Every structure is written in structure tokens, then in C-alpha cells.
């Protein structure tokens, strides 16, 4: 069995993870599912691998021996806009997932996820379905609520989210399935993943100057 992209070729994945057992585990699960996986243990290895070929999917840990995964994500986002980026997180906490999201990641993967789940998540992502957890949804919607001082945690611009997207996030935060959310909001079930992808895109800060602009807009930076 081999996972194939739209062109019929095998989907290539670049896996960046410094912990060898975790790396093997993820690689095994993905290879078993038919993906073509190359792995890198450091930022430098990842960059050289990127130089050789452009992967369809980038899976990266954040804490790497020679740098931070966020830098890699930003680079890939700018150089290869078609590459899907996923962050690998031990706990799936908002600190890591949101910071990856703002530089261009569109999904996250738990390190201890079951092998079938790992494969499913990557497949969904390639199909345009970004996964989002209840706790991440909760973090985002709480940022949309106006408060006097920004809550702690990574900065996030939620100004561009539509009320519908915020409603969807509320549904996810409260544990409703996509189908339940769709029926509550009077949507088609199939449109929900698209909305979530949009949410990811909207939360992304494209350039450094834009990041500054957004921060000023939100009053996070005082000029």
C-alpha cells in the first residue's frame, strides 16, 4: 500500500526529530502507511535535505539541537508554499502548537499517537483537513474574547476570524464533532475542515514586518 499524491507519485515526508526512538516510531508508522519518509535529526540536516528535494509534508519537532523548529517552519513556508507543515508535540499544548501555527504550520501531531492515527492525520492534512484539538480551539477562542490585558502565552491575532469560524472553534473546544458542529450551525459537514484550514491560514503571520504590524494593531506593542 502506498499513499499517493494527486500526481500519482508517493507522498514525500521530511521528518525532523532529534530523539531517535521517537523518530523511528513515527517513521515506522508513516512508512508502513506507504509514505516516502526522509528523516533529519538537526536543523542543519533538515536544510540539506530540503536542498535535495522538496517534500510534500514537513513534520518537525520544535526543540532541536542546533536551533528551533519555528525557524525551519518559517523557511519552508516561504520557500515551498505547497508543502504542508505539521509540528510534532509531546503534549499538544498551545505553547508549541500556536507558535508553530503563527509561522505557517497547519497541523500538529502528538508524539505518542497510535500508528494508525499518525498515518490518518498526515493523510487528512494532505487532503486539506487540518486537525485542531479542543484545547487549541479553546486557546484561540479565549483570545477572541476582549480582555483588558492579553492573557499569557504566545501572541495571536484573532482579528481576522469570522464569527462563523469562532463558532466552529467554540464547538470544537466544547468537544463537539464536526458533524455536530455542522448541524448546530446549519453547515454542510464537509465544509467544516475547510473552515478550520482557513483558521490556520488566518492565524499565520506571513512576514516579520507583518508580525510587527499585527502586534501594533492589537496593542501588544506600543510605539
Amino acid at each position: 500500500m502506498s499513499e499517493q499524491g494527486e500526481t500519482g507519485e508517493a507522498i514525500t515526508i521530511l521528518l525532523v526529530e532529534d530523539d531517535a526512538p521517537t523518530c523511528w516510531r513515527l517513521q515506522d508508522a508513516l512508512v508502513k502507511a506507504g509514505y516516502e519518509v526522509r528523516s533529519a535529526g538537526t536543523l542543519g540536516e533538515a536544510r540539506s535535505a530540503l536542498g535535495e528535494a522538496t517534500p510534500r509534508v514537513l513534520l518537525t519537532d520544535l526543540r532541536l539541537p542546533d536551533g528551533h523548529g519555528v525557524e525551519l517552519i518559517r523557511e519552508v513556508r516561504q520557500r515551498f508554499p505547497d508543502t504542508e507543515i505539521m509540528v510534532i508535540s509531546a503534549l499538544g499544548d498551545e505553547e508549541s502548537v500556536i507558535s508553530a501555527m503563527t509561522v505557517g504550520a497547519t497541523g500538529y501531531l502528538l508524539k505518542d499517537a497510535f500508528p494508525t492515527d499518525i498515518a490518518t492525520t498526515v493523510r487528512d492534512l494532505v487532503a486539506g483537513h487540518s486537525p485542531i484539538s479542543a484545547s487549541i480551539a479553546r486557546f484561540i477562542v479565549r483570545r477572541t474574547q476582549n480582555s483588558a490585558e492579553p492573557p499569557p502565552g504566545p501572541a495571536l491575532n484573532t482579528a481576522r476570524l469570522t464569527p462563523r469560524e469562532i463558532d466552529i472553534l467554540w464547538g470544537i473546544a466544547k468537544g463537539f464533532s464536526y458533524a455536530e458542529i455542522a448541524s448546530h450551525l446549519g453547515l454542510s459537514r464537509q465544509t467544516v475542515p475547510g473552515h478550520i484550514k482557513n483558521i490556520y491560514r488566518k492565524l499565520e503571520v506571513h512576514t516579520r514586518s507583518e508580525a510587527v504590524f499585527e502586534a501594533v494593531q492589537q496593542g501588544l506593542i506600543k510605539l
Partner: protein
Amino acid sequence: MSEIAAKATIKPARRRLLAARLVPYLLLQALIVIATILGLRLLQPSDPDDFALSGFSLREDGATHPVTLPHFTSSRYSLADPPLYTGAFTFRRGDAASGWSVFLPRFSNAVEVAVNGVVVLDSRRDANANRPDRNTPQIALIPASLLRDGSNELTVRLFVWGPLKGFLDTVYVGPDAALRPAYETRTLLFVTLPVVFSAWQSILAVILAIMWLMRRREPVYGVLAAAMVLGVVQAFVPPPVPPATTSRLASVLLASAPTESALIVVFGVLFFGWRWPRYGTLLFAPGIAVFVVGLIAGPPLPRILFLLLGIPTVGVCLVLMACVTAAAVVRRQDAASFTLGCAVSIVLTCWVHDMLSVSEIVTNERIFVSRLSYSAMLVAIGAGLTWRFARALNQVDSFAGQLVTRVREAEERLKASFAREEARARAAALANERTRLMRDLHDGLGGQLVSIVALSERGHEGATITDAARAALKDLRLVIDSMDDIGGDLMLALGSWRERAAMQLRPHDIALDWRVATPQGLPLHPELRPWHVIQIVRILDEAVTNAVKHAHAGNIAVTIETLDADQGPYGVISVTDDGRGFALAGDCAAAGTSQTARGLRNMRSRAARCGAVLDLGSDASGTRVRLQLPQIFPDSDAAAS
């Protein structure tokens, strides 16, 4: 000096102190009396002696005899047949550059002056001129047509109403230019000055009355205002001239002087902070007596009574006042009592001077100065009181300033202590949170990690270690998740739990049926704390784990609903499985393994800690765990210790 100090000292010392203070004061008063007498001498206005006319013949009671002015006639109560003074002056038309006048510096009570038989002046028309307590002078131009070259006749009719004796000072006839300045001087001193003083008094009376109205607990202002009002009324209301019928008004005015002086004594006593003695009211008796007699009896009687009762009362009051101020000086040694004492001495001296003048012991030109000096004293007192009031205001101002400073200091201290308290509370909260976190990690993660270590050491097959490690990770996520602020919405915590549970169930091919019966899910609990969330989620975890491990269920349903009995809404979370169930033996021991029993006991104790009610039902068709949440979560973890 304070009274306590005075009482504490032994008698000889006290006497010495008294002497040391009283003697200098009395010496000072003696000096003031002498100065007053000298001042009164200086006050005597000089008259143009060149034009004096003192040789007259007096026709009185049918008899005629020569007299020399100034002259006293006997007191009388009838205006009929008044004493008639007849004299002559020489006029030469040559030196009559200006007109000639007749000038009478002092007379009592009224005069009618005629030149060559034609009346040129009748003082009865000027009510103020007839008052015996005023020293009003009179001047009248003599029409040139009346004057004859050579000797002219001047007649003065002196109207006298008792009980005082009639008095006629030297009469001056001469060019108006020579007489006018003397007349002006006297008018200034004895007419204008009293009016000025009275005007001051009336203003001060208004100010003091307002002060008293605003500060009722200080009657001293009211008493002084009353005294001043009386003085003003007495000064400005013209006394009726006999034989006017309005004698009652006259009697009221006569009563004013003794009443006024009594009021001044009351003022002195109150001003120096003494209690007004009950018998002190007797001081008002003479005034009231004169008043009552004036209301009832005819004209002469109130005047006689006034002379006999009123004037001595004034004297008695002045002496009392002098004593009061002397005592105050000895006690307080302050500027106010000294000043007041000196003022009283001056007035007393003037009163004695007037008495001597009335009784003809001192022969002067019968100028009464009591009234004038008394008015001056009242004005001085009023000014002093105003000064005291202004000083009190200043004190209030500075007190207010101090208060503001103090309040600011206190505020700063409070702020600092509040900041300290806040920091302390924050530290305490942090410590509490740490304790809780530690307990939670110990309950879950710690045990699981230890279990992993033990399993690895025994060389166990990987699957069990995997389960333990997964459980540990799950618990870690739960602890982290529960720390998040969910704003009292338990649904947000359950949302995350659903994901974790679904992930746990997926490898076992168990479906998680999630049913939210009511649209809003669960009621909001603003009092919800992380430790409540952890307990609830652990109960649900335990229920799911039991269903997976022991019941071998194929389907697990989680139902979330809000019920509303009569006492408000409450949430209910039920976990139902279609497994084979287990027999419940007793309250908490299950028929299955002891692990299950421990699990059930844990669930119960966790439910109890957050005030929830746990219901377990199990039979062959499945198990049902029903967790009924409290309406309000308990604040303290009572069962934790």
C-alpha cells in the same frame, strides 16, 4: 495655666502665684485709670473764651437772682414755668463782618434761646440734643435784623425733666466764624463719633448673630450680639420729649442700659469659659423692673427708678466684669483677658467720672463719657471676637492641611501594606497551586512512572509498559489542561477529555458516543477551580478505563445534561457502557479484582471532594456511572487532607 496645675500646687505657692500675677495687673489697671483721667482732661474741648457770656440773672419759681454760668438748677418734673436765664451782650455793627451766632456747648435737658425777645433756637425739636447722656452742643445764627447796636438781651429758657438736675454751661455769643470751630469739634466728639461707634456695633451685631446662628453651642456670640443690638437701638431710636405720650417707649429705652450691662457680664463669664451661676440672672432684675414700671407707670417714675436702679446696676456690672477679667488674667495670662480687663477699667473709670459729675462732686462741664467709652469697648470686643474667629479658621485650615498630609501618609502606608498583602496572597496562592499540582502529579503521573520503572525492571512485555506510559502522558496532559482558565465552563474541559478518551478507545475499537442532551451542555460555574476539573475528569477516566479493562464493552456513551429541579439547575454526566457489568458488593467493594474496588472507592472519594454525587449501577447488560454535579462547587478541598 491649667486648673489641674493650680489645684495640684499647695496653698502658699498658689497664693504666691496669685500675688505674682494679680499685683502687676492691678498696677497696670491703676496706670490705665490715671491715663484715662488724663485723657478725659485732654478731651475737654476748648471754647472761644473771648465771647463767653456767664453773668445772667435767673428767674426761677417767681424769684430772680444773679447767677454765673455754668449753673445747675434744681430737678423738676414739670415743663411749665421753666427757669429763665436773662443776660446781655454788646454788639457793634462795625465788627459784624460775618453773621453772629449764639453757641451753647452743653445744657440739659432742652433750651429755648431768644435774642431781644425773638426765639432763635429751640432744641426740643432735635430729639438727640435733649438726651442727657449725650453732650450735644447747639449753635444758632442770630438774624442780623434782630441785633441792635450796643446792648442786646439774650434769654435762655432751660427745660428740665427729672430726676437729673438742670444744667446750663457758659453761653457764647459772637461772630459765627469764631464760634463755629468749637461747635464742630464738639459735634464730632459727641454726635458723630457715637454714631460711628453705633454703626460699627450694628455691623458687628449682625456678624456675631450670624456666628451664633451657625454655632448654637457657643452662646457667647449670641449674648454679645444681643447686647450690641440693644446698644444700637438705644443709640438710634430718639427718646420722646416730654410731655410726649409715648412714655412707654422711653421706659423701654431706659431699661436697655442695665440689661445691656448685665448681658456684657454674661458675655464675660461665658467668654472665659465659666459656668453662668444661677443667681446671676438677678443681674437682669433691675432692667426688667425699670421696663415693667415704665410700662405701667407715668413718665417720671421710670426715670427715677432708672437713676436709682439702672445706673447703679451698670456700675455693679462693670465692677463684676472687672473682677471676672481680673480672675481670667490670673488664670489664663493671655492677651484677650488683658485687653478686656483694660477696656473694662477704662469704662469703669468713665462711669465713676460720670457719677461724680452727676452728683456735682467733680465740677466740670457735665460731659458724660460712659456711653462713648462703652461703645468703644463693645467695638473692641467685637473686633477681638472676629479676630479669634479668624484665628480659629486658620487653625481649622492648618488642621485640615495636617489631616490631608496624614491621610496621604496613611494612604501610602495602606497602599504599601496592600501591595505586601497582595504579594503575600500571590505567594500563598502559588504555594497552594504547587501543593495541588504536586498532589495531582503524585496521584497520577508519579505512580504511573513508578509502575513503568517496575515493569521495565521485571522485563515485562512491552504492552503493559506502553499502557502505563500512555496513562502517564494522558495524566500529564490532564494536569496541564486543567490549569487553563476555562471561565467556569466545564464543557471546555470535557471537550479536551473527549479527545483523549477517544484516542484511548480507538485501538480497542470501542466507539465513544457523545450526547449533549441540552444545548448549553452544563451550567456555568464561576466558582469552578482546576482541582474540581481534575477530580471530575479523573472520575470519568476511571469509568472509561473500567469499561475498557474489565467490562469489555463495545460501546461507551457519555451523556451530558442539565437538570432543573426546584432549586435551580445542576449538571449530570453519565458514562454508560454495554459491557458485562460487575456485581456490587456492599458499598464500595466490587466483586471483581481488588483494583476495581480501589478504583470505585477513588471515584467516590473524588466525587465527595467536589460535592458531587456518584451513582453506580451495574448488571449483565452494562454499567452506568452517574455523576451529579453540585449547584455550587465547594471552595475548600475539605476531604483532601
